[in-house]
């Protein structure tokens, strides 16, 4: 599978280009939007802030890409 979403994508771009990500990441404990604005930084940084391991980040990226495929 070609990975469209990578861990380096900024949260701002993720929300804009893949809006379904907000709900998915919320279930993982990551709030992409606080005070009505996207948080700054990359997907990887947001995951690390929530103490995700490297494997968990990889899994999250994989699942986001799968969701993207389903949403197309």
């Amino acid at each position, binding site marked *: 599978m070609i990975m469209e979403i990578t861990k380096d994508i*900024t949260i701002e771009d993720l929300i804009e280009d893949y809006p379904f990500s907000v709900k998915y990441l919320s279930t993982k404990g990551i709030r992409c939007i606080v005070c*009505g*604005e*996207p948080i*700054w930084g990359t997907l990887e940084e947001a995951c690390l802030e929530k103490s995700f391991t490297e494997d968990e980040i990889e899994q999250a990226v994989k699942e986001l890409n799968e969701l993207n495929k389903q949403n197309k």
Partner: protein
Amino acid sequence: MMTKQEILDKLGISDVNMGLTTGTKWFDTEGKTTTSYSPIDGKEIASVKNGTIDDYEMVITKAREAFKTWRMIPAPVRAEVVRQIGLALREYKEPLGALVTLEMGKIYQEGLGEVQEMIDICDFAVGQARLMNGFNLQSERPMHRLTEQYQPLGVVGIVTSYNFPVAVWAWNSALAIAAGDVVVWKPSSKTPLTAIATMNIIQNVLKENNVPEGVFNMMVAKSSVMGDNFLGDKRVDLLSLTGSTAVGKRAAQIVGKRLGKTLLELGGNNAVIVTPNADLKLAIPSTVFGTVGTAGQRCTTTRRIIIHEDVYDTFVEKFVNAYKSVEKKIGNPLDSNTLVGPLIDKYSVELFQEAVTKVQEEGGKLLFGGEIAKGIGLENGLYVVPAIAEAQNHFKIVQEETFAPIVYLIKYSGGVENAIAINNDVPQGLSSAIFTKDLLEAETFLSGMGSDCGIANVNAGTSGAEIGGAFGGEKETGGGRESGSDAWKVYMRRQTSTVNYSTDLPLAQGIEFNL
């Protein structure tokens, strides 16, 4: 009321707009295009071309160059430009206020109020420009003069949020420009049109006064283009950021690494205390404005009401009744009858609904609202019925700031010190209020053992600050102060000077050093 097209035409907003200016010159950038949609009906208003990394470099270079000239112009002369900007804003108050409403969704009265804040801070800065003074101090050495003075600081980066899309820029810019600084503004990507309109309004003033390009800069950009690099840029002398605690913490770390200066205006979790001695005729309407004004999207929105058990039932009954009236006035914010407009986007609605669910899961009780409002004109799903929930202060959801109209009612018993303890028992520290006619309760609330917030009001709500006082808060609110009082000092470099006008060289502390 003007039509949408009339508003846009008056403010010089086209279908596609350039998103970068250095004052009077606009640049056709090649970044992504951001489309601005109105939360009123979900329809596209117009779009904006974003700046790129190269554009950012150009702007900062231009700003640093302009600072060399601007800092040497006398402060009252600099402030004359600010005075004229205030006049221009008066001329365009109605269309700009309407665009704020159109793009952000706050009711038109609040849109006008936002522009009035811009005007007020311009007026304030004009006077302040003649009083950006330091101290003359008493030297311990004979024939020495000891003074403190304030010098222009440099480039001020301003990051603003969608909820006050233009007022916060004005709070910072009016003072910074009068202080001899130059500004680089990154507006919210959700409200770029109000930023462009503001720059359109002021550009004639800049032209007529020959203000150098690079003094007033504005660039619409993604955080990947103007994010961490902006925060970490040593050429930015002060970074003023209004936004969430999450973004503020990131900014503090990055700016802190270079020992730069920040002015942070972050989240609030503001409470109103209602004591047994409160005048409910004041407390109810004031608190309702605090909870549902701007659809709960102010950083000073009242999030918690701490009510004494003796007046709890009476207060709740009246408060819920007031919400029943408010519910009838949810609608198009351009309509003069409307009191509550839409939330900014569907994500905010989801967070609102999530909070309503969470408070109940934690054991709270929903007393009113919490659903998506239905009706003609409300079909886009961004209008919600403001929620009231009974809760405990320690609930996780109560400790967080939900940027939507949900308020938590918390009962207290005993003395006012118990209510103050609840008020202070949250991570944030922006605004607070007490309703009481009892002098002892009021003064305790305002004392060293009182509210730990940056703003503490008596018989006035948590939101709706005047520009004359310093605005900001403690703890996770960030500690910054902007707007009135002595907030101007953050935009200036403090300098202590000793002048020896004797022919001797006495050292401080009487130290002997004979060569």
